[in-house]
């Protein structure tokens, strides 16, 4: 008997059918991957499963071990042994690891928390998972990867039999991914059924017993993992054959546009700690320079300090188009011709409740409109070009940015920076969390911009992306530059070796 059965689930939102007859079964000890483009219905399906949408709000049947269940809230699904780890972590940063694990269920006597017992139990739990995390440490002090693992420990402390992981590796280093998979492997042996949502097909194929593909709210296919291939899955996800994710592109390299010398960046919290240590690089017009490195290698900090956005101590020399410049604020950087598509678009890139138009013209507002007064007419005219060339799918430029899909949001941020008419464009994780189709469009756009003579610096955690797009790759490891490769030299093993410090 299946551990979990979801049968013919149908969920409507006003005007949209989000799920249209989706079925899914999960056996004990099964690793079941759920893939699909953003908006395909994966998250909605998991919200149905977890009781976020109560039983009255959708049609269809959910059964656990053959028993039909009906959840009216998250608490019900938790009691039934379902634990969901969402993309955005739900830990309280100011509390300790132990407190977070037992949040709401702390062992207590007459309302007084038994701290000894709590930390003893937390400690055992973490130890069982093979994690060396201090249960008394504040969650906020841990890296994002360790926080993810704490979240899993928390789920397991509730004796979850069904574990849903939504993009759990998006923020993890490769080492942390390994730890995670070791843990998942162990859980599998213990009979926990897992539903694994991820855009990273390498991971999906690594452990899955079965792979279910959703598209536009329907189940497109459900495969035994060994009977299908990556290309096949991608084709089913996007509904078309993807022949070449990274289109071959010839870039004509021109003069050096930006030269950054001896960049050193210090941590804001610990002023003695060097996040970037004496790194120098240059980028030519028409060139895509990839910056590879693991999480925490200092890539984003390197770009932020050049852009004048680093609020801690830093020192560097910049030469733009052959003449030395100083950049103290983002405004000076923009004026000098540097654009910065920042990571984490919701936090740093977009004003989520404003329109596409307002977002897109923000960085170049004074140039587009005039110094004092805004001109809606000029703004519309300026935004029309990126709307079209980036193929942003929205009813109009007045659409609120928060209602767009991740891919379209990312394109709006890219459009915002293209409107500043940069000579150098920094791209920090430009395709994180967006679907395959949108990724491809952004890759094509990057190539187009390079062909048009823009100098591009690309930071990405996805190695294939860096290798596929870059003319040259530099590698950072713990703040130091540990390698530089031409396109021909840059292989995954070499770059990875440099990124892990087993250099050159």
């Amino acid at each position: 008997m299946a551990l979990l059965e979801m049968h013919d689930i149908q969920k409507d939102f006003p005007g949209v059918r989000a799920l249209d007859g989706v079925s899914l079964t999960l056996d004990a000890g099964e690793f079941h991957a759920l893939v699909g483009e953003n908006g395909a219905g994966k998250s909605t399906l998991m919200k149905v499963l977890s009781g976020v949408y109560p039983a009255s709000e959708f049609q269809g049947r959910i059964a656990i071990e053959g028993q039909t269940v009906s959840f009216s809230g998250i608490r019900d699904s938790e009691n039934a042994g379902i634990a969901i780890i969402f993309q955005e972590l739900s830990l309280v940063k100011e509390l300790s690891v132990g407190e977070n694990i037992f949040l709401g269920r702390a062992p207590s006597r007459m309302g007084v928390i038994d701290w000894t017992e709590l930390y003893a139990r937390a400690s055992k739990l973490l130890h069982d998972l093979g994690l060396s995390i201090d249960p008394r440490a504040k969650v906020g002090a841990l890296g994002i990867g360790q926080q993810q693992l704490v979240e899993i420990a928390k789920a397991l402390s509730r004796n979850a039999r069904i574990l849903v992981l939504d993009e759990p590796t998006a923020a993890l280093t490769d080492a942390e991914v390994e730890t995670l998979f070791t843990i998942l492997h162990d859980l599998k042996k213990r009979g926990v059924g897992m539903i694994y949502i991820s855009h990273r097909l390498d991971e999906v194929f690594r452990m899955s017993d079965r792979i279910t593909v959703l598209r536009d709210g329907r189940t497109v296919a459900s495969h035994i993992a060994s009977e299908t291939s990556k290309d096949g899955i991608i084709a089913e996800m996007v509904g078309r054959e993807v022949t070449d994710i990274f289109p071959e592109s010839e870039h004509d390299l021109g003069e050096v546009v930006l030269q950054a010398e001896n960049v050193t960046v210090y941590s804001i919290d610990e002023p003695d700690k060097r996040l970037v240590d004496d790194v120098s690089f240059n980028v030519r017009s028409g060139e895509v320079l990839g910056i590879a490195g693991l999480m925490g290698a200092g890539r984003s900090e390197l770009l932020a300090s050049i852009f004048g956005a680093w609020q801690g101590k830093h020192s560097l020399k910049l030469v733009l188009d052959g003449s030395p410049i100083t950049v103290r604020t983002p405004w000076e950087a923009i004026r000098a011709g540097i654009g910065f598509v920042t990571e984490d678009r919701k936090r740093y890139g977009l004003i989520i409740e404003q329109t596409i138009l307002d977002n897109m013209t923000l960085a170049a507002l004074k140039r587009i409109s005039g110094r004092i007064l805004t001109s809606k007419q000029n703004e519309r005219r300026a935004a029309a070009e990126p709307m079209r060339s980036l193929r942003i799918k929205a009813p109009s430029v007045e659409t609120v940015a928060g209602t767009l899909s991740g891919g379209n949001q990312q394109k709006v941020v890219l459009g915002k920076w293209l409107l500043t008419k940069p000579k150098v464009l920094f791209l920090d994780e430009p395709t994180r969390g967006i679907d395959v189709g949108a990724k491809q469009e952004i890759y094509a756009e990057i190539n187009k911009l390079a062909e048009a003579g823009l100098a591009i610096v690309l930071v990405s955690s996805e190695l294939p992306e860096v290798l596929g797009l870059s003319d040259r790759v530099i590698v950072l490891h713990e703040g130091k530059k540990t390698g530089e490769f031409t396109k021909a030299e840059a292989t995954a093993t070499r770059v990875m070796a440099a990124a892990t410090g087993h250099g050159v």
Partner: protein
Amino acid sequence: MSDFKSIFTNRAALRAYAMIGVLAAIWILFHVITPGHTFLTPRNLSNLMTQTAVTGVIAVGMLMVIVSGQIDLSVGSIIGFAGGVAAYAMADMGYSMTAAIIAAVVMSTAIGLFQGALTAYVNIPSFIVTLGGLLAWRGAAKWLLGGNTIPISDETFKGIGNANLPIEYGWGVAGLLVVIVLFAAYRRAKSTDNENNGGVGRELLKAALPVAAIVGFFAIMNAWQGVPVPVVIFLCIAFLGVFITRSTVFGRYLYAIGGNADAARLSGINNRWNVLKVFGVLGALTGVAALIFTARVGSALPDAGTLKELDAIAACVIGGASLVGGRGTVFGACLGALIMASLDNGMSLVGVSDFMQDIIKGSILVIAVGLDMAGRKQS
């Protein structure tokens, strides 16, 4: 997905209509229950508009501060202090009226900039800075006035709070405004850039409501003694506020900073400088409000403007502003101020006791925001 735009824009419009509806309901209610049905008379409406003026002028500046994600709790005390400065300059130092006006506005602007600098450049939260200001400037007012009131003898100065625009001037202004509205409608109709261009006929039809409002307003005010000068000042400032928030780079930056401070900074906006400026604007407007208040009372009082900050904040919030920042309109804040003043005025006419008035106003504020939140959640 295709009708997100219409949902959003219609919701903003819907909100404005709902508020106008609420205002109308309040007015009709008071008119019915007031002894002698005196609420909706030209005399009382003229009075009501004058009462709205002080809160309204501050609410316009407060709205901009709130949109940028900040708050100012000190404006009530600054009214007391700036009013004191004006009266002291004239009565005790023998300055001319003009010099006294300048002194008061410069003083309140300087205070606004000072508090803005502490917020923007010293990173003290504005809530704390202006909470300190709430105490300190009230103390300064009491110190300056020595705990007494300073009467004002200059009749021209008192006119700022009590005079009226001569009736024929009023009609002149009304005519001018109607022409401007019609011309704007005509230009919109002819503009090629407008997405939902409905042609000349439709644009003129859409202009009918504002034209009727203008004519109606001036007719009612002129039926009593003409438009009161404080109301003229308030309306000018309201239009200025609408213009700043909707049509200037500064205004757009305020919404961006309040909406997402990090994204704004990384887009090259100097957040600190703009926060400093918006506190300066509110300071200047507070000075204007102080002049109206002092002129209307005819003397500077040590406790002038007490609790005005709360009226202004309430007006903004009732008008749809979010205290988190990034959202709110000057139009909404002005309507909010008018609603608050209507409650004051109406309840006084009905003879509701002071303490009951406060209880009702407080409850209405909470209920209004509660309903707004419930409405947002649903959609």
